[in-house]
């Protein structure tokens, strides 16, 4: 395992703070800033703690970083950011970006993002990433200077544009299908989970009403009073327990969400490959047609129907000098084209090789993470049931004493 940044440095996003400032259009806005703290791991001997460096970043800067990484390393499945806006909410959760719970979960998500990048064998070595962690001022300018925005292919933004690739790489096609399926199934799951959470919340909370009524009723009862009163107390405990339970479940939902967004990143890699392949095929096609033109001019035979051919037939042949010149130009172009094609092919093969390596890495990570997430979900459910057993055992005792 290569030495990645995560092993050398502790990275945390430890705080979130509300700020107001003026944005690009000179309008006052409120936003949240996050404190990134880093500390070198190595020099922690004899109880000496390395100094903590820290700086503040806002969400839009994280976005800029990620865009840069996506464009600069197109063959890498770049870790996703936590969602921009609260999605898959159930009724108790707020959809407000300023809501403290949302901010807290976003803080955790951002920390997770940084850790993922820092543990990636390739990405962690990027200078811009390092500067993001260490250099507060002038970072934005540094990123823009790399000119990565020029490299970004605007064609990729057209999500549904299909490039008719004649010889698609079967593995990439399958992978794209898989990423689509994964996206669809996880978002469906999250939607239903939110509804289930809502309903469960209802069941638990209505039991709280029992608590109130039992207590009021116990006031008029002599023999039943004590039993009712204490049973009521347990109903209150039961009703209150759902809050913690569902909060824990939110973490599980967030873990799934990360892979929902990861699926998007995976898809992006497939698209980039598609685009590359398309460009390659276009270049090859172009080269072939130029070669053909050259041949026709040289031999004087018209193999394919062309307007030029017709006009020259109608308006007379060109002079041999003109033809020579044309052939010369074409031959140059063909030379260029062949070199380009060669390099494109090479590029393509490199891309496939490194992309596939990263994809394998990603697959393993995904399987491991998801399995752990599922296990922790099951553990959560068991704990919920244990709590339920405890409450109702107590309640049963109270009832039997009525």
């Amino acid at each position: 395992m290569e030495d990645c940044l995560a092993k050398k440095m502790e990275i945390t996003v430890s705080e979130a703070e509300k700020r107001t400032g003026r944005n690009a259009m000179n309008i006052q806005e409120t936003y949240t800033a996050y404190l990134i703290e880093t500390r070198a791991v190595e020099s922690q001997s004899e109880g000496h703690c390395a100094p903590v460096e820290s700086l503040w970043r806002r969400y839009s800067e994280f976005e800029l970083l990620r865009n840069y990484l996506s464009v600069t390393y197109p063959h890498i499945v770049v870790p996703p950011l936590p969602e921009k806006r609260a999605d898959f909410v159930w009724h108790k959760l707020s959809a407000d970006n300023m809501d403290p719970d949302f901010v807290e979960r976003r803080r955790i998500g951002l920390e997770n993002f940084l850790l993922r990048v820092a543990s990636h064998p390739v990405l962690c070595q990027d200078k811009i990433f390092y500067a993001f962690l260490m250099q507060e001022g002038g970072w934005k300018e540094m990123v823009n200077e790399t000119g990565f925005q020029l490299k970004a292919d605007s064609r990729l933004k057209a999500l549904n544009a299909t490039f008719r690739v004649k010889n698609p790489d079967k593995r990439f096609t399958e992978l794209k299908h898989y990423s689509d399926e994964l996206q669809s199934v996880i978002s469906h799951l999250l939607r239903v989970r939110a509804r289930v959470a809502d309903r469960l919340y209802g069941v638990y909370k209505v039991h709280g009403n029992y608590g109130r009524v039992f207590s009021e009723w116990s006031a008029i009862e002599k023999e039943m009073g004590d039993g009712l009163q204490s049973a009521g107390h347990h109903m209150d405990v039961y009703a209150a327990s759902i809050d913690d339970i569902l909060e824990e479940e939110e973490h599980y939902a967030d873990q799934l969400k990360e892979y929902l967004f990861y699926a998007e990143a995976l898809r992006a890699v497939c698209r980039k490959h598609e685009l590359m392949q398309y460009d390659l095929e276009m270049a090859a096609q172009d080269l072939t047609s130029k070669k053909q033109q050259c041949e026709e001019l040289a031999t004087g035979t018209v193999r394919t129907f062309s307007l030029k051919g017709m006009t020259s037939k109608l308006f007379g042949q060109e002079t041999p000098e003109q033809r020579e010149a044309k052939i010369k130009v074409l031959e140059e172009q063909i030379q260029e084209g062949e070199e380009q094609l060669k390099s494109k092919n090479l590029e393509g093969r490199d891309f496939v090789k490194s992309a596939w390596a990263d994809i394998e890495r990603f697959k393993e990570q995904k399987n491991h993470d998801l399995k752990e997430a599922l296990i922790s979900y099951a553990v959560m459910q068991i704990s919920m049931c244990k709590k339920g057993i405890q409450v109702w055992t107590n309640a049963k005792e109270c009832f039997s004493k009525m």
Partner: protein
Amino acid sequence: DTSLTEVNSFSPSVPISPSSMINQYKFEDGPELRDLFITVDDPESHITAIETFITYRVVTKTTRGEFDSSEYEVRRRYQDFLWLKSKLEEAHPTLIIPPLPEKFIMKGMVERFSDEFIETRRKALHKFLNRIADHPTLTFNEDFKIFLTAQAWELSSHKKQGPGLLSRMGQTVRAVASSVRGAVKNRPEMFTEMNNYMETFSQKINLLDKIAHRIYKEERDYCNEMKEYGPIHTLWSASEEAIGDSLKGLAGCIDRCCRATERRMAGLSEHLLPMLHEYVLYSEILMGVLKRRDQIQGELDSKVDALANKKTEKDLFSEEIGKLEDKVERANNALKADWDRWKQNMQWDMRSTFTNVAENNLRYYEE
């Protein structure tokens, strides 16, 4: 559990769940002293030119001497039960007559003859008759005996006897008139306490009824969502290799949770909901009983007042007054005894039902 086997040996053909048997056959006297066993079952639909109605089979088994036979089987319709109840109320105005299921159910989409409605009603009618059988006084009521034993035509002719509609209306008018005369002055402290208690109890039991229904509804909604939740995991497992099995396992667990929820819901609807509903009705009945006692007392008081004003006809009045005082005293005693009995029963019911709910929940969570 000896009581269970005893009961089983008497009514082998009737398919009642053991737990509901326990629910019925609880009372101060041990089950060994019981000598009257009643079941209500087998609803049947009858269609005539004018109407459609349901009859229920009422089977009685008894060792009592005053019954000519030891086993009876008759068919009764809801109207007959209403008749019985009103006769009992007439004969014992200050005793607590058990509630009958309502004529209609206003809320909910339950149709008059839906299976659910009929079954709920059948269970309630069964409870009604058994509560009467358990009651130390009511169980010996003549009309009750006729209800259990007479053939259909015998019952109709018996119904036609007795005070006619007009006289019954007269009673009601007098009763209303006397209640209009304002709060009873000499109401014993005990009954005022009872009144206050009933007001609060009635409020609380109504709330509990609503809460229980609400919980049932929430659980049903939860169950429905869970039914969709499980299959998604199975769908997902189809596109995964390494985690496919875990996902399928999770889907299986979710389905089992769903079924456990359904069982919990069934427990609620079988025990808690009917019990709470019965006591909602009971609270109305009790308020009525307390009012009737007040009326009787009112009669006495007004006569006493009249006596104080009219010095003549003393003897005549004092006899009447004497009779009324007796009546009031009897009524009061009857009510008090019955009240204590009722409260004990109620306690027992609440205790056992809620314990049952708790047990169901435990079972649910353990699953």
